[in-house]
């Protein structure tokens, strides 16, 4: 990927930011990528910006253009810059970048944090940013000293020249900013890395998070700020018909009550007053199109849709003939429910909308979109909207949505004052964009040895991208609905045919950590286990024997490796077999299950070990994971991400289920929507990384999907019950065969 470096960016940057005059700032433009977000957002960005700033005071600031939601971009991305810049990573300052074209994520086409792409996108780009800055600093020093650049070295923010000459980066910054930006930027080989791959590197945000000083969106305080509590229609797609605010308006401390597009907001001097007053609002709702929506009708709709042929997204060979010639056919159907994101920090935004300017301070994964939607909601122009990204108290895909930023902007505008809008947990859980529910059907034709010869797969679920990024949906196929099976890793020599039937249920669906890997790969890896059982084969060896060792490119695998990864999967499966003590004798009621998946160019093989009681209560005793994620930038936090994925996947597959009655979501807090607690976490996590110097794979998401079928397959091994309906509750396990 060729970076086009523009010299004038630093002037724009200095003008815009008003940083230390004469400091060095560098910006990089990327050539065209998929650009899906840009196309939908309508273009029009703020001035270009920079990755590295070096002040005259020697302070090095590294801009982080991705949202820190736990996944460690606050440290891992500066590590890439600092590696080449040759500065002490523990002494730099970090700032979250504003929206600007320079910060677009080439893998997603927008300034958007998602798809496990942050490090993958940054891997070359940020090292080049650091290297370019270093080369300009050296050039400035060499020019001052009248020596050749080749005779200069750098160490810890100091340029050293012949005869003991030394100059700090800060003292060179002004001059360096006038030097030509290098076009040819060689990068260090991995063998010379000092920061990248350091096992002992600590997170740069831990101290603030441990002392309670890290600023999340909800912690925002600006002068004159008021607090808004909201009432939103309980029914999905409902509206305010009319309301009586006579009681609310008379609460001491209430400033005003305003209606906005989605609901009614009480604005007060403090949040509790706003909340109490909001509860007294007497609102008549227009229930909207989903007034009669319930789960029975909703599932009937999905079932009917699944009888449609759908759009074929992967096909080879003659699948029908393969079925005819098969020794046996095996059919199975999986059902996955809606699940909620429920990050610990409820949705919130602080908005200050004035006649000619708006400031939006928000925990968002998609800062680039906000100027456009806030402009749409307020009548301002996008360039009049300033966006400040805070720390995110969890994201998981929920904060790719910008609904809550729009709401806060509308409330601030209507109230005529700066407002911090905070959702209650109930607001948050009942107004989420849920992971899609769906039906996943398989028919396999196997030969007399049980080996797969032909496979049909048909999924039916709502399409997320049809609402958020309609331009990526083509011919009935949403690329984010076929992940996790488009990259089917096994062989089916006679033929395979995979199809997707889009079906809108009325429930709002959104990107949820690992997106459709959770749907397709969860179903697929459970079904492969069924085939292994039917064949009477060991589930790990059965998988290894069927791996696709070819290199045919997959059509829809936008964020995956793009080609089969058979050799990597084989190695991961072999390693996990050893590390997990696979096949050893276990007490009655205990079992092991395996699953393997490639997603985001990371391969993970997992073995779950569970104990299932006679009443089908499941305890997860141990998870062993072998992960091939290429080069690890920050190894301890790569580990943390796998730990995190296991927890998030466990919560979803063991308990996660959102249901709807009369158009309203029934679960509204952690008493009705259960998530894993410390006493339910696996007793042992045994996570290993395969040593690799390949390009980095994504780590924020894939484990979330893999752990679920590993648990399901372990439940089968322990109990003889094969759960095909999620979550894996005692009821669903007991009802399965």
């Amino acid at each position: 990927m060729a970076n086009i470096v523009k010299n004038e960016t630093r002037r724009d940057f200095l003008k815009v930011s008003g940083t230390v005059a004469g400091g060095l700032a560098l910006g990089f433009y990327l050539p065209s990528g998929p650009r899906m977000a840009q196309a939908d957002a309508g273009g029009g960005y703020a001035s270009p910006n920079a990755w590295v700033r070096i002040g005259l005071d020697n302070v090095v600031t590294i801009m982080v253009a991705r949202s820190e939601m736990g996944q460690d971009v606050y440290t891992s991305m500066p590590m890439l810059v600092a590696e080449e810049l040759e500065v002490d990573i523990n002494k730099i300052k970090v700032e979250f970048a504003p929206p600007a074209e320079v910060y677009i994520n080439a893998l997603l086409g927008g300034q958007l944090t998602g798809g496990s792409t942050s490090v993958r996108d940054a891997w070359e780009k940020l090292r080049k940013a650091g290297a370019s800055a270093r080369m300009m600093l050296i050039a400035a020093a060499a020019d001052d000293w009248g020596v050749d650049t080749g005779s200069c070295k750098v160490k810890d923010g100091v340029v050293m020249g012949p005869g003991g000459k030394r100059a700090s980066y800060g003292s060179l910054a002004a001059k360096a900013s006038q030097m030509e930006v290098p076009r040819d930027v060689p990068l260090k080989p991995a063998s010379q890395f000092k920061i990248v791959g350091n096992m002992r590197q600590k997170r740069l945000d831990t101290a603030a998070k441990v002392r309670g000083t890290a600023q999340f969106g909800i912690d925002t305080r600006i002068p004159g700020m008021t607090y808004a509590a909201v009432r939103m229609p309980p029914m999905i797609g409902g509206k305010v018909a009319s309301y009586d605010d006579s009681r609310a308006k008379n609460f001491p401390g209430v400033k005003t009550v305003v209606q906005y597009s989605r609901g009614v907001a009480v604005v007060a001097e403090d949040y509790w007053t706003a909340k109490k007053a909001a509860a007294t609002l007497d609102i008549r709702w227009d229930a909207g199109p989903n007034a009669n929506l319930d789960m029975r009708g909703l599932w009937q709709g999905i079932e009917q849709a699944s009888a449609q042929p759908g759009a074929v997204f992967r096909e080879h060979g003659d699948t029908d003939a393969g079925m005819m010639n098969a020794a046996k056919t095996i059919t199975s159907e999986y059902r996955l429910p809606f699940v909620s994101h429920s990050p610990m920090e409820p949705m919130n935004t602080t908005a200050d909308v004035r006649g000619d300017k708006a400031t939006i301070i928000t925990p968002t994964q998609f800062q680039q979109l906000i100027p456009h939607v806030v402009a749409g909601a307020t009548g301002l122009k996008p360039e009049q909207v300033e966006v400040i990204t805070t720390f995110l108290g969890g994201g998981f895909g929920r904060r790719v949505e910008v609904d809550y930023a729009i709401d806060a902007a509308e409330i601030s505008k209507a109230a005529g004052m700066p407002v911090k809008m905070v959702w209650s947990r109930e607001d948050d859980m009942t107004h989420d964009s849920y992971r899609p529910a769906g039906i996943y059907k398989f028919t396999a034709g196997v030969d007399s040895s049980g080996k797969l010869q032909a496979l049909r797969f048909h999924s039916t679920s709502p399409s997320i991208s049809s609402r958020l990024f309609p331009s990526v949906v083509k011919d009935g196929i949403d690329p984010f609905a076929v992940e996790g099976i488009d990259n089917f890793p096994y062989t089916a020599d006679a033929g395979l045919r995979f199809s997707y039937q889009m079906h809108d249920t009325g429930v709002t669906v959104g990107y949820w950590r690992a997106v459709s890997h959770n749907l397709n790969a969860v179903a697929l890896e459970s079904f492969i286990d069924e085939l292994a059982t039917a064949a009477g084969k060991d589930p790990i060896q059965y998988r290894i024997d069927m791996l696709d060792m070819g290199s045919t490119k997959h059509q829809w695998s936008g964020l995956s490796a793009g080609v089969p990864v058979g050799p990597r999967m084989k190695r991961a499966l072999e390693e996990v077999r050893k590390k997990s003590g696979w096949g050893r004798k276990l007490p009655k009621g205990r079992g092991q299950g395996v699953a393997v998946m490639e997603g985001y160019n990371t391969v993970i093989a997992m073995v779950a070990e569970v104990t299932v009681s006679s009443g089908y209560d499941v305890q997860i005793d141990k998870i062993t994971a072998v992960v091939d994620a290429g080069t690890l930038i920050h190894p301890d936090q790569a580990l943390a991400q796998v730990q995190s994925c296991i927890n998030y996947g466990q919560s979803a597959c063991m308990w996660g289920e959102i249901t709807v009655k009369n158009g309203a979501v029934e679960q509204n807090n952690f008493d009705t929507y259960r998530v894993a607690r410390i006493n339910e976490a696996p007793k042992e996590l045994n996570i290993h990384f395969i040593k690799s110097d390949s390009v980095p794979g994504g780590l924020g998401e894939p484990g979330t999907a893999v752990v679920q079928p590993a648990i399901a397959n372990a439940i089968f091994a322990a109990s003889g019950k094969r759960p095909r309906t999620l979550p894996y509750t005692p009821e669903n396990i007991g009802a399965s065969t």
Partner: protein
Amino acid sequence: MKIAFQVNGKRTSVDVAPDTPLLWVLRDTLGLTGTKFGCGKALCGACTVHLNGMAVRSCQTQIGSVAGQKVTTIEGLGGNHRVQRAWMALDVPQCGYCQPGQMMSASALLAMNKNPSDQDIDAFMSGNICRCGTYVRIRAAIKAAAKMS
């Protein structure tokens, strides 16, 4: 109505409705935003503080009941408390949002139980939800803190 109490060793008084949860007094009135709002129903533990040394959920503690008592928040733990040192040594936080509550619970646990077992940790810490899945590190950090002076 003025309500007087101690926060992090300092006397303070606030003029708010007595049914206001301590959580919102800390965050909005006193600007101590280290204490987090998670569920509003004492289900998640994000708002955990110490009331006279005991861990309580500040979202369910009315300020009227706090008059004359001692409240400690994450800001009052001092920054160098052994729990905080252990949390830093093991890089426990991911998103970090639940961690003030986790540390306030953990420090209350260690004040009562010098050497908690896994079962003790499970029992005491199960009221604190972490969606990032830092449980394995929380458990290790509590054990590490138990060994610190």
